[in-house]
């Protein structure tokens, strides 16, 4: 083995024995450090995977959705507007969507009721999301009562429970035939909730939107890019969840690193003094402390990241469930597809490992520069 490698191994041996001498303290330190990395990495992995999934799925969303606004609120669109928008040059397809919200008073959940364009879904039948089936404790073939606008219950036979892998978009969906949606919400013929538009050339979308607003000043076009941007903003570094957890984790880490940086224990000072008095150079002492820091921080970083990966992608981020649920009664269960990003992992590494290593090296450098005699006496 090359002498320089041999030297590093010998220093590592010494560093490990030094860490083992303060076993309890160092184990507690590594556990706290791992926990900080775990929380940060879980959050980064979870948010990144959700953002990626939203981007991939919403790529297939309508190019534009047009709503009608009345008194600052979303209102149903008359068929005349739908037809006029359909005739605008550049609009390839324009589908009137029928949908709304339904509050189930029995178990307190909010459902999204939507008309399905599928003609095989007969009136009186329903396709429901997994979350609805789970909450209502129903299965295919069962009957589900929904209370109509007049308070009278309407019974629907469950034709299909949507597949488990669709929960991320359809957990709370109840798909009915268009006629049933109109009956349930008392929506007269000739009115639609909004309009989904597909443009022949996506570059013309802005022009189409301008024409729609010129023609119908009460229309509000929402472009696909805006839908994507909403999710980007919601789960951005600056976004709510990220800010709350990142700020508290980073703050706790700063306190932790500050505690280390403010000084060494008397025992550690004495140890450095003895090492210097028996012939160790300041560089050797720093190398020893570097290895001590590297062992702790690398173990915490690798352990924390691996645990976070398991937590988010194998156990569906169970620890975040309560934060995400909020007041939702109906909560989707989904398994995210990992979207690891070299940039995020590198940021995580520099946010956690570097401050700790610097915090351990600075006080040691100061102690190593001191006279061995005074270091031993202190």
């Amino acid at each position, binding site marked *: 083995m090359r002498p320089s490698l041999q030297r590093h*191994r010998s220093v*590592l041996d010494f560093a490990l024995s030094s860490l*083992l001498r303060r076993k309890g303290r160092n184990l507690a330190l590594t556990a706290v450090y791992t926990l900080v990395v775990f929380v940060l990495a879980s959050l980064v992995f979870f948010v990144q995977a*959700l953002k990626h999934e939203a981007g*991939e799925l*919403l790529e*297939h*969303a309508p190019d534009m959705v047009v709503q009608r*606004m009345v008194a*600052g609120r979303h209102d149903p669109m008359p068929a005349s507007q739908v037809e006029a928008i359909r005739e605008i040059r550049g609009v390839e397809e324009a589908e009137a*969507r029928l949908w709304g*919200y339904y509050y189930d008073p029995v178990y307190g959940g*909010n459902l*999204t009721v939507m008309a*399905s*364009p*599928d003609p095989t879904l007969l009136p009186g039948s329903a396709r429901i999301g997994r979350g609805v089936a789970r909450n209502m404790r129903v299965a295919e073939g069962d009957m589900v009562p929904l209370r109509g606008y007049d308070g009278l219950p309407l019974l629907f036979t469950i034709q299909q429970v*949507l597949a488990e*892998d669709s929960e991320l*978009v359809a*957990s*709370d*969906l109840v798909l009915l035939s268009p006629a049933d949606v109109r009956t349930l919400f008392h929506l007269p013929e000739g009115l639609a909730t909004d309009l989904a538009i597909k443009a022949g050339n996506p570059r013309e979308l*802005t022009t189409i*939107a*301008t024409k729609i*607003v010129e023609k119908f*000043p*009460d229309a509000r076009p*929402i*472009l696909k890019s*805006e*839908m994507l*941007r*909403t*999710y980007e*903003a*919601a789960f951005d570094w*600056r976004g*709510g*969840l990220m800010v*709350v957890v990142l700020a508290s984790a980073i703050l706790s880490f700063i306190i932790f690193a500050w505690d280390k940086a403010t000084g060494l224990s008397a025992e550690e000072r004495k140890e450095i003094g003895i090492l210097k008095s028996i012939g160790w150079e300041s560089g050797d002492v720093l190398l020893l402390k570097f290895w001590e820091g590297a*062992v702790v921080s*690398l*173990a915490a970083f*690798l352990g924390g*990241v*691996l645990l976070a*990966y398991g937590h988010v*992608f194998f156990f569906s981020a169970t620890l975040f469930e309560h*934060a*995400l649920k*909020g*007041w*939702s009664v109906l*909560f*989707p269960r989904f398994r995210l*597809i*990992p979207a*690891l990003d070299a940039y995020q992992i590198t940021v995580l590494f520099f946010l956690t490992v570097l401050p700790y290593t610097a915090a351990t090296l600075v006080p040691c450098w100061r102690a190593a520069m001191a006279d061995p005699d005074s270091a031993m006496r202190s």
Partner: protein
Amino acid sequence: MRPSTLCLSVFSALAALFVGMLLHARGRQSTASQERAGRVALVRSLGLTDLCLFTEARYTRHPAMADRHAAFQDHPMALDHFPSGSLLAPPLFPSPHAPLPPAPSQRP
């Protein structure tokens, strides 16, 4: 055995697991389109615009379709009623990138 040998073995195992994690993520990504096919079909056929993450309120269930002041649904600076309002940032309307000026009927 020297302590450094044991330590390096542990770190090698952790590094192998880390590489395994990256490979696992890559493997899941390569089969992601099949895994996502059902969801994509639903988004396409129904014209869905949002992920089903928070179902307690209109503006958390469909943030992309929400009114302009959501999550401050009633008026700007209105106190929010739901805990997820503190987790979701409000949409970027109006933003410097917004392609359109607001329609006259939507101006205050």
